[in-house]
């Protein structure tokens, strides 16, 4: 009788929670005529998922050589690259190759200095206005938490990068816009950023469009969730602990209640 009561009391929260969330999701997705996202296999999926460091490092190369021409990543520091397996010397070398504004010199003129691991990622433009001016009026969004800021997350970013084509016959494109079947409204200001062979990977991996898109998406997912590896590991431990605690607490409850009729 007791477990029979336990069931509705705890199934109901799950029911309400899942119900509300499931109902909310289609509402957001249904607005534009974009095909459903195809779920890709990601190394960081699932309870035990962790970032594939090799993919993320290749993604960093794509970000650095392609995306960072227009997109900032203001929340990231160069030291954060330790999270995808770069060692201290590699991080120092990576940062030192990038010049950032330094202190004013004796005559008050601005100077430049090599970046340090403690520096934020350098932004391509000094401010939003300059970014708009250089991009036909459209502001390239900051990519620090972009993966968390788009419905569909990594699958959406991957699909978008692969979603460019010529517009279907009869579609009227606005000036300076590009056709992308996954972008809401199908007209995106960003020209196709990746075509395949845009970078020469340090580790020799062939840089097909799909490979580049997959790698840079992995890197963007890392940038948005640098705590993910630790979070998943903590979650596994917490769940095991709480299942054990629930079990023995329930056993004790049974013992204490054994004499009550």
């Amino acid at each position, binding site marked *: *009788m007791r477990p029979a009561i336990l069931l509705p009391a705890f199934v109901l929260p799950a029911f309400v929670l899942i119900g509300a969330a499931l109902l909310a999701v289609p509402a957001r997705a249904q607005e534009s005529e974009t095909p459903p996202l195809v779920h890709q296999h990601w190394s960081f999926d699932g309870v035990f998922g962790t970032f594939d460091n090799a993919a993320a490092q290749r993604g960093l190369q794509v970000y650095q050589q392609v995306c960072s021409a227009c997109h900032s990543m203001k929340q990231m520091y160069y030291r954060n690259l330790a999270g995808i397996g770069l060692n201290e010397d590699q991080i120092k070398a990576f940062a030192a190759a990038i010049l950032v504004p330094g202190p004013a010199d004796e005559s008050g003129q601005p100077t430049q200095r090599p970046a340090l691991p403690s520096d934020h990622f350098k932004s391509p433009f000094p401010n939003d206005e300059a970014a708009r001016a250089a991009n036909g009026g459209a502001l390239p969004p900051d990519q620090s938490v972009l993966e968390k800021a788009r419905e569909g997350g990594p699958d959406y970013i991957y699909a978008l990068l692969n979603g460019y084509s010529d517009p279907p016959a009869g579609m009227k494109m606005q000036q300076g816009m590009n056709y992308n079947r996954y972008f809401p409204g199908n007209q995106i200001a960003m020209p196709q950023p990746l075509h395949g062979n845009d970078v020469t990977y340090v580790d020799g991996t062939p840089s097909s469009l799909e490979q580049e898109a997959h790698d840079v998406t992995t890197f963007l997912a890392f940038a948005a969730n640098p*705590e993910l590896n630790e979070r998943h590991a903590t979650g596994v431990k917490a769940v095991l602990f709480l299942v054990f605690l*629930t079990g023995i607490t329930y056993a004790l409850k049974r013992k204490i209640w054994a004499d009550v009729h």
Partner: protein
Amino acid sequence: MAGLHKSDFANPVINWIDTRLPIFTMMQKEYGTFPTPKNFNYFWNFGALAVVALMVMIVTGIFLAMNYTPNVTMAFDSVERIMRDVNYGWLIRYVHMNGASMFFIVVYIHIFRGLYYGSYKTPRELLWMIGVVLLLLMMATAFMGYVLPWGQMSYWGATVITNLFSAIPVVGPGIVTWLWGGFSVDNPTLNRFFSLHYLLPFVIVGVLFLHVAALHITGSNNPLGIDVKSPQDTLPFHPYYTIKDSVGVCVFLLVWAVLVCFVPNYLGHVDNYTPANPMATPADVVPEWYFLPFYAILRSVPNKLGGVSMMFGSILVMFVLPWFDTSPVRSCRFRPIYRQLMWVLVADALLLGAVGAHPPQGIWVVIGRVCTAYYFLHFLVILPFLGKLERPLPLPESISRPVIAGGGGGLPGGAPAKPMEKP
């Protein structure tokens, strides 16, 4: 001396304190030996779970406030700094963020339990009304907390909700300007919301104290909805209900941990990871899931003031519920018709949630209006009449003897009768 308390505690230190300030005696009386109906089911866990949720929210909130900056130029970045640079900041922030959802889940189930088992009926009307006050305070706290990360949903949610007050005739626009401290949601708004978001949880603690005090005056309701008649009907709170609540707390924390560690953003909205931009409204402004049914009611009324009134009315109607339900029987178990209608109300609320999540177009408008109408119909029309028309099942004689007493008015009390139904 007249004022000193005669303490029974053997430990000299506890005895010394208890003689001068009998808090140990009080704890022993209210949480040790406190006579509690012996037939609680697990729905009676949810009050304790709400207290746990409140405590976790206050503690994590205090540590978040140590690193949060309530300024429009820095709020978003300071939250990201918590997520990235503060030791375990991601954990504390995700626990707090998902904690709002967890808090509302347990409180909604707690309210459902009160409705289903008639916990609002005499003599617990005031206990119930204090509970409704707690719900309103929680909603205000949750709303202002959601503004603090200063993402797109924070900003536009704040704009939409504060604009509700502009529906008030004559003084409405003045009130909205006063709430904002300016002519739009801006830095003064964020600052005061942070201040109030920090204050209100402690107001909740105070009102919660009244809620519990009122509970301990009337004693708890129980699944049978009948009064405690003898000591055989009760058990001391400790250890029976401390351990039973502990089981619930463990399961509750388990669900919370899964949310935080594996799907921390599942219940949130992606647009709140884009910094607030007063120049661009997101494609669809929707509140957090726990406000969706109220949002649906708001949008179902094709009149601004009407919608706002109905939305607030949907909660205020709870204040008069004890007087609109005319049935003398508390528990749904003995009200065959009302029990069905109770589930219809749950379905109605869930449907309203779905309506709130969808753009107000086509069929959703119709569903929204039907559900809104039914919601008020339930409380204001069905309940008063049903209490008079419905023929309740015979009530058991007592909690400890869950047999149906005197069916037809003639049988002796101890006669074998149909056992009570399984809960």
